[in-house]
């Protein structure tokens, strides 16, 4: 089941508790842990008296979130637009090229190794080249995000589609189903868990793309640039607050995605 280069389709959170108790505690327990963690952090600062440049107490981070929340969220929204577009375009292109690779032998023979090679190479090194050719604006950031989001989807689409059993294909043929019919009714439902697993990786990669492309061009728009600026002023609490804003956006989008995934692949 595992794809060659990605951790796709191997994720399953083990069910630990019974239904109703589980449903409540699944949200309460992580919350309790997070609160305990923050409390321990605050107490740790009180006891050791760490300098707040090195490690600010949660209260200071909270102050930043409270006072500059609009500013942070505004910057994060700019980044989120890049991430969303990059995820959408990269995912779509990845899916389409996965389908093409699987359907046309020639395409597969000619470009699949190149795509696999590009998948495993650290793609961040291409960023300076992209800056050179496309500047430091939205287009460049979108390109970085698409570049990162594209490959896991391609890889997983190919893995999923090539796993469709021969018998199933022959069955649709014998039922006089056309190619399109077979694709829609047999191949796609079979491959969709793989594709969605690829998209889940692509979502994480899009977040990396959005933030990394901004970190490498300080003074630009978006939360990544704000983090770099805060680092220049040793404004540690601002950095941590920014990371928390990114985390909040990330986790919300992750759960949205999981919810969508469950609705789309209800039969699994």
């Amino acid at each position: 089941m595992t794809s060659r280069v990605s951790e796709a389709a191997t994720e399953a959170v083990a069910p630990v508790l019974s239904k109703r108790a589980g449903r409540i505690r699944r949200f309460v327990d992580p919350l309790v842990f997070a609160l305990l963690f923050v409390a321990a952090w605050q107490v740790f600062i009180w006891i050791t008296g760490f300098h707040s440049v090195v490690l600010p107490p949660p209260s200071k981070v909270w102050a930043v979130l409270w006072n500059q929340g609009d500013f942070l969220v505004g910057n994060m929204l700019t980044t989120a637009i890049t991430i969303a577009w990059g995820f959408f375009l990269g995912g779509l292109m990845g899916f389409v090229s996965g389908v093409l690779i699987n359907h046309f032998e020639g395409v597969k023979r000619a470009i699949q190794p190149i795509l696999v090679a590009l998948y495993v190479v650290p793609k961040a090194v291409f960023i300076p080249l992209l800056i050179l050719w496309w500047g430091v604006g939205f287009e460049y950031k979108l390109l970085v995000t698409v570049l990162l989001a594209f490959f896991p989807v391609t890889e997983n689409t190919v893995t999923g589609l090539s796993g469709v059993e021969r018998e199933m294909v022959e069955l649709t043929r014998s039922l006089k189903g056309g190619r399109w019919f077979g694709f829609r009714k047999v191949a796609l439902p079979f491959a969709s868990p793989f594709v969605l697993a690829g998209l889940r990786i692509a979502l994480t990669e899009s977040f990396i793309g959005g933030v990394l492309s901004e970190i490498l061009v300080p003074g630009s728009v978006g939360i990544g640039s704000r983090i770099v600026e805060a680092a220049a002023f040793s404004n540690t609490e601002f950095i941590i607050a920014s990371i928390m804003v990114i985390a909040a956006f990330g986790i919300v989008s992750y759960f949205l995605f999981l919810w969508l995934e469950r609705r789309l692949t209800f039969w699994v």
Partner: protein
Amino acid sequence: MGIGALSPARTASWWEKAGRRLWYHWPVVLVLIGIVVFWIFMIEWRDFHPIVLPSPGAVIEALVENRIDYVRAGFVTFYEMILGFMAGGALGFFSAVGIFYSPFLRRSLYPLLLGFRIVPKVAFVPLFLVWFGIGVGVKVALASFAIFFLILIQTGLGLAGVDPALIELGRSLRMSEVALLRRIRLPAALPAIMVGVKLGITYALTNVVVAEMVVATEGLGFLVVEARSFIKTHEMIAAIFVVAFIGLVVFAVGLWVERKTVFWYLDADH
């Protein structure tokens, strides 16, 4: 997902399969030639300035000329990579075992870590700069931070996916929990862990290179950024090629390690 008890009689060794695969994909050569021809065409007939698009010849020249720099930077990157991989891997592995044995942590911390995976680790670079300094520290920190999550989750998956029948078997043999972990749980979880190790080596390189690009003091990522700041595009592209090549080598090493350790799983039918 059980243990492949006995590997079946093999008809072709894996490198024979790899060879056949390479032969199957020979049209790739045409595509690569096409790309180089297109590249030359853009320079010769569309008059691209060498700063925007240097000629392949200039890139090759830079590759040859700077070979000592690549070796030197490569050693730095390699060193940081190994340190980051070992630190993050060990931390992730032991945390996963710890979380596995604590029902509370499994319910509370594990979902948090799963959710936290989506946060780009590179955002922590400024923080690591404050904590670990501008030298090797920040790069190792970023790499180990990323690998920690990967190994932790893969180990957690592996441990959770062990066939209950095997555990029953161990219990019926009155194995202690330590023996159960050593003799049954971990070996059965090894394929999932090795997926983490395989990807982890690549993650280590990627994250070290990213940190080198952001912090820019030494290493392969630094060479790319440095060439850019001097507007020496041919050197930049040469350095990109070097990193890409090393990325391929590192991934091949990862595949090899996986192949060597869990061959009994990979060769079995699933």
